[in-house]
């Protein structure tokens, strides 16, 4: 079956695939996860705050983002952002944002919705006595969150956060709709150029599978190490 396969294509394309493609994929994954975590935590705090309006806005945002297919958001955002930028800055023509920035913003917004739900569950998993004890010691709301509640919530939720990041790592391949050279995009370009579709897509699948598998394994190891002793 493999007799007429040319695996040399892969070997020759390796530098391009990894230097160009994988660098982009990992950078997008890392930055989007970081941004998503920061904004997601903020959204979670908004939802859990006593202020109803704030909570509703956050709740609407989360529901809205989760009701849309990611590809559609990426696509729309890429074409909309220049016009939004034009409208905000009052420029005379659409502002060019660039594929990386556009996809990064999209992923941060999208992941924030998912991360916020994870962080919300994490914060709610902390018993009410903990913030009460922190308040009783004179810590302000912000200090209570920063030093007592969020570190515990984050630790409780770290496995789920990383698992979501692994999903994000795979989802970043959707930027191919913007013809961006991420890992899959790079593989696809080589495949088309050399007419070696099967080999390249097979190889891409193996790489995604291997990285995700190793990461999942790492999560389990990490979980055992950082868990709070109770």
């Amino acid at each position, binding site marked *: 079956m493999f007799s007429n396969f040319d695996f040399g294509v892969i070997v020759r394309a390796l530098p391009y695939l990894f230097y160009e493609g994988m660098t982009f994929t990992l950078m997008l994954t890392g930055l989007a996860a970081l941004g998503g975590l920061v904004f997601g935590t903020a959204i979670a705090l908004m939802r859990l705050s006593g202020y109803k309006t704030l909570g509703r806005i956050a709740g609407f945002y989360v529901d809205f983002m989760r009701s849309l297919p990611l590809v559609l958001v990426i696509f729309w955002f890429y074409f909309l952002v220049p016009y939004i930028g034009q409208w905000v800055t009052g420029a005379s023509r659409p502002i060019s944002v660039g594929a990386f920035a556009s996809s990064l913003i999209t992923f941060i917004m999208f992941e924030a919705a998912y991360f916020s739900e994870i962080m919300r569950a994490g914060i709610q998993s902390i*018993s009410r*006595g*903990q913030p*009460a*004890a*922190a*308040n*009783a*010691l*004179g*810590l*302000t709301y912000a*200090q209570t969150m920063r*030093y*007592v509640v969020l*570190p*515990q919530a984050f*630790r409780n939720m770290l496995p789920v956060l990383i698992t979501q990041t692994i999903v994000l790592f795979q989802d970043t391949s959707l930027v191919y709709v913007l013809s961006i050279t991420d890992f899959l995009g790079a593989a696809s370009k080589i495949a088309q150029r050399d007419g070696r579709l099967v080999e390249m897509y097979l190889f891409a699948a193996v790489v995604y599978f291997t990285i995700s598998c190793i990461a999942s394994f790492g999560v389990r190891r990490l979980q055992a190490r950082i868990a*709070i*002793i*109770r």
Partner: protein
Amino acid sequence: MIEISHVNKWYSPTFQVLTDCTTSVTKGEVVVVCGPSGSGKSTLIKCVNALEPFQSGDISVDGTKVNDPKTNLPKLRSRVGMVFQHFELFPHLKIIDNLCLAQQKVLGRSSDKAVAKGMQLLDRVGLQEQAQKFPAQLSGGQQQRVAIARALAMDPIVMLFDEPTSALDPEMVSEVLDVMVDLAHEGMTMMVVTHEMGFARKVANRVIFMDRGEIVEDAPKEDFFGKPRSDRAQKFLSKILSH
């Protein structure tokens, strides 16, 4: 030191948890609050440092009104030590860090000073060797002693205890009570919600008996144990002292 006057708290018009509670704790006094479960004693003590809001009435601590929106609550709370039923140590921090966190972040003490103060208080409750452990590695009694030390590290002007021994195994109750008795003998102002009548007999100046959200009896210790005036207090005492 603590002035509680005509405090009312309700969750809904039909569910009143505190009804017209008035009492006070003077400097150096030890006041024990007792009563059947659900009588509102924990709620009352949590109102003192505004962990629980209330709808009407006034509470002031050292002249500062707790229910005044202009009061800097974190600042007030930093001067009022509180010990909880379930200890509430921070499980992600080592024992010594549990003692240092608020000293550094609230009082702005340097790390060296906070650690020195923390170690001194751990020594006082007999737990200096446990400083580098995590809360879950300690027994319940040890955790509660750490919680007392954590509150004392803030140099409080008054200490509130919310059923400090109710969640403990029987053999650990005395090690916690011993610390509290010492504290009382040193002249600390204390308000203690507890069922430990032995503790009340030993160090309390006054005993407050609550039932269904009301302060039914508020009397010097001798009067309370000698001849409680109300039926309800008599019944309660006969139930818990008969064993």
